[in-house]
C-alpha cells in the first residue's frame, strides 16, 4: 500500500512517515502543493493525505486539480480549520474525509484504513457478515448464529458502521460523524454507552465476543481467531 503525504511542516511529515511505515505502508512525502500535485498525478498511490494550508498551491487546489484530471485516489484532508463550513469546503473540493489538527495518530490510521477499504470493498452488498454475525441491509435485521437480534434503528446504523470497518479500529469521533452526523465531541461518554448496549445485544449470550474496545483509540469489530 502506497501513501502520499503532502505536508509542509517537516516535523509532522516526518512523524507521519515514520508512524505509517511502522503500520506497514510505503510513504512518499511532498513538502509543498506543487510537488504534491506532481507526485499525485502519477496516480500510483492508494491514498493521499493532504494538509490544507500549503506553500505554492493549497491543499484544496491540489485536490481540485487532481479531480479535474480524473484521478480518483482517495484523499484525506488534514487541517487546523475545523468549523463545519471548512469541512464542507474541503469535502466539496474533492476530499473524501476531513480530519482536524491536532489529531491522534490512531484516529488518522483508522480513517485512512476506512478510506482504503471504501475504494475496494463491494459497497453494493446487501448483507454484511463478520463471523457468525449477519446484518441484512434490505430487511434491516440482525442475526447471530442464525438467531435474530432486536436492535433499535440507531443501533443498526452503529453496527453497520462497525461491520463495514470490520477488523479495523473505528474511533468515537468517526462514529459520531457517521452515525449521528455530529461534528463535535460531547463531554459525556455518550458513545461508550451506546456501544456497550449494542455489545449486550450481540455478544452477551455468545462464547466469543466480537466487539472489542481498543484503549485510547476506539472500537473494533472482528471475528475471533
Amino acid at each position, binding site marked *: 500500500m502506497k501513501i502520499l503525504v503532502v505536508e509542509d511542516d517537516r516535523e509532522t511529515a516526518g512523524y507521519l512517515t515514520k508512524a505509517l511505515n511502522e503500520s506497514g505502508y510505503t510513504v512518499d512525502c511532498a513538502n509543498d502543493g506543487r510537488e504534491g500535485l506532481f507526485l499525485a498525478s502519477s496516480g500510483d498511490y492508494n491514498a493521499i493525505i493532504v494538509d490544507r494550508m500549503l506553500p505554492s498551491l493549497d491543499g484544496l487546489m491540489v485536490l481540485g486539480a487532481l479531480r479535474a484530471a480524473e484521478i480518483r485516489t482517495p484523499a484525506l484532508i488534514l487541517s487546523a480549520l*475545523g*468549523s*463545519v*463550513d471548512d469541512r*464542507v469546503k474541503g469535502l466539496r473540493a474533492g476530499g473524501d474525509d476531513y480530519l482536524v489538527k*491536532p489529531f*491522534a495518530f490512531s484516529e488518522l490510521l483508522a480513517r485512512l484504513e476506512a478510506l482504503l477499504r471504501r475504494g475496494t470493498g463491494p459497497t453494493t452488498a446487501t448483507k454484511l457478515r463478520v463471523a457468525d454475525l449477519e446484518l441484512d441491509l434490505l430487511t434491516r435485521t440482525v442475526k447471530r448464529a442464525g438467531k435474530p437480534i432486536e436492535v433499535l434503528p*440507531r443501533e443498526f446504523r452503529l453496527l453497520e458502521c462497525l461491520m463495514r470497518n470490520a477488523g479495523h479500529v473505528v474511533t468515537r469521533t468517526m462514529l459520531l460523524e457517521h452515525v*449521528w452526523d*455530529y*461534528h*463535535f*465531541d*460531547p*463531554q*459525556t*461518554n*455518550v458513545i*461508550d*454507552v*451506546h456501544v456497550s*448496549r449494542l455489545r449486550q445485544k450481540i455478544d452477551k449470550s455468545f462464547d466469543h465476543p466480537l466487539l472489542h474496545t481498543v484503549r*485510547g483509540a476506539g472500537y473494533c469489530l472482528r471475528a475471533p481467531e
Partner: protein
Amino acid sequence: MFVEKLRVPALRSRSAPQILGSARRLVRTHVFRLAALYFLVFAVSVLGVLLFVYWTSANFVEQQTEATLDAEITGLAEQYAQRGLSGLIQIVAARSAGDRGDAMVYLVTDPDGKPLAGNIAGWPAGVPTHSAWLSFALERSINGRLETHPARGRLFIIPGGYRLLVGRDISDAAAFRSQVRSTLLWAGLIALCVGLVGGTMTGRNLLRRVEQVNRTSERVMAGNLSDRVPLHGTNDEFDQLAANLNRMLDQIERLMTAMREVTDDVAHDLKTPLSRLRARLERALAEPSAGSTQSEAIRAAIDEADRLLATFNALLSIAELESGAHGDQTEPLDLSEIARSAAELYEPVAEEKGFVLAVMAEPGVTIRGDRHLLSQALANLLDNALKYGRGGKIEISVYRRDRQAFVEVADQGPGIPQEDRETVLDRFVRLEPSRTTPGNGLGLSLVRAIARRHGGSVALEDNRPGLRVRLEFTGLAV
C-alpha cells in the same frame, strides 16, 4: 515640573524660523484657508457696497448742480425772449449785484469778449467759443482772499456774437464728495479690520476644538484609553462629534477590557492543566524503564493534552461565533427533530447515570439556522445537566409562543443561585461547588454564542429544584 520650566522661556524667545514654521503650519490648516476665503469674499462685497454708495451720492450732487443751472438758464432764456439782449444784460446785472450765497456765476460779453454784465471780471481761461457744458477754474475773492474754485457751467452763443455764461461754483459738491470718500474709506477699513479679527477668532475657535479632538486621539493612541474629548455643553456639531467619539472610545475601552480579561482567564485556566501535564511527563521520565506505570503516566498526559485542546477549540469556536466569521449555513431546521436526535444520543448515558430523560416537543417548531451548532448547544446543556445533577428528571421541551421558538433543558440538580445566573454565561466562570468537577467553564458561553448567532438569547431560571435553561429564538421559519 522641570520640563514645564524649560518650556516657558523657550516659548517666549521663539526664533524667526520657528515663527515662520508655525505660520506655515497655520496656512496649511483647512480652517485658515476657509477663513481666508471668507475674508476675501467679505472684503470684495464691502468694497462693492462702498463704491456703489460713493458713486450714487456723487452722481446725485452733480445732477442737482445741473438741475439748478438748467432752471437758471430757462429763466434767463425767457427774459431774453421777452426783452431782447438789453433785458438779458439787465437781469444778469441784477442777479449778479449781490452775493446771494448760492455761488452762481453769470457773465455776458460782446462778440469781442468784453464783459457787459456779470459777477466775474473776465472770461475764464480755457472757455471755448461755442455752446457747451463746461468745467472751469474760477477765481473768487472770499473774505478778501483770492481762491481758485472748481466750477461748472454752460456757455450760450446768442445771435449777434454775444455770449452768455451761466455757471456755478461746485467747490461745495467737491468737498461733499471728498467727505463721502473719506467716510467710506474709514468705514471700509473698520469693516475689514472687524472682519479680519472676527475671522481669525472664529478660525482659532474652530481650530482649537479640532485640536482638542486631535490631541485626545493622540493620547488614546499613545495608550491612555480612558481619555475623552471635552464637551462644551453647547450641543453643537462639535459637541455631537465629540460625544460620538467618546461613545466610540467607551466601546473600544470596554472591548479592550473584556479582551484583557479573557486573555488573563485563558492564561490562568490553561496554566493549571499545562503544569499538571508537565508534572506527569516529568514523573514518567523519572520512572526506571518502560513499565506499565510509565505508559499509564503518558496516557494520562495525552488525556490532559486532549482536554487542553478541547478548551482551545471551545475558545476558538466562541470567538469565531462572536466575531461573525462563521459562514452561515442556514437552512430551515425542525427544532423538535434536533431535540429528539440529541435526546436519542444521550438517553442511554442518562439512564446509566440514573436520570430520566424526557422530550416534550411540539411538532413543526422551525427556525432558520445551522443544525450542527444547535445540536452542539443542546449537547452542551445535556452534558451540564448530567454533570451537575444527581439523578432525577431531565426534561427537554420545544415549543412556540407567538412568533418565538423556545428550547428548554430543565434538570433537578443543584441549580444556580439567582445572583450568579448572569455571570455564569461568561467565559471560564465556574461556580465554587463545581470547581472540582471536570470541565472548562466554556459550555454555557458557547451555548450563548450559538443562541446569539441565531438571533436568540439564553435565560437561566429556577426549576425548583434545579436549573432551567431556555433558548429563545425570534423569527419562526415557515
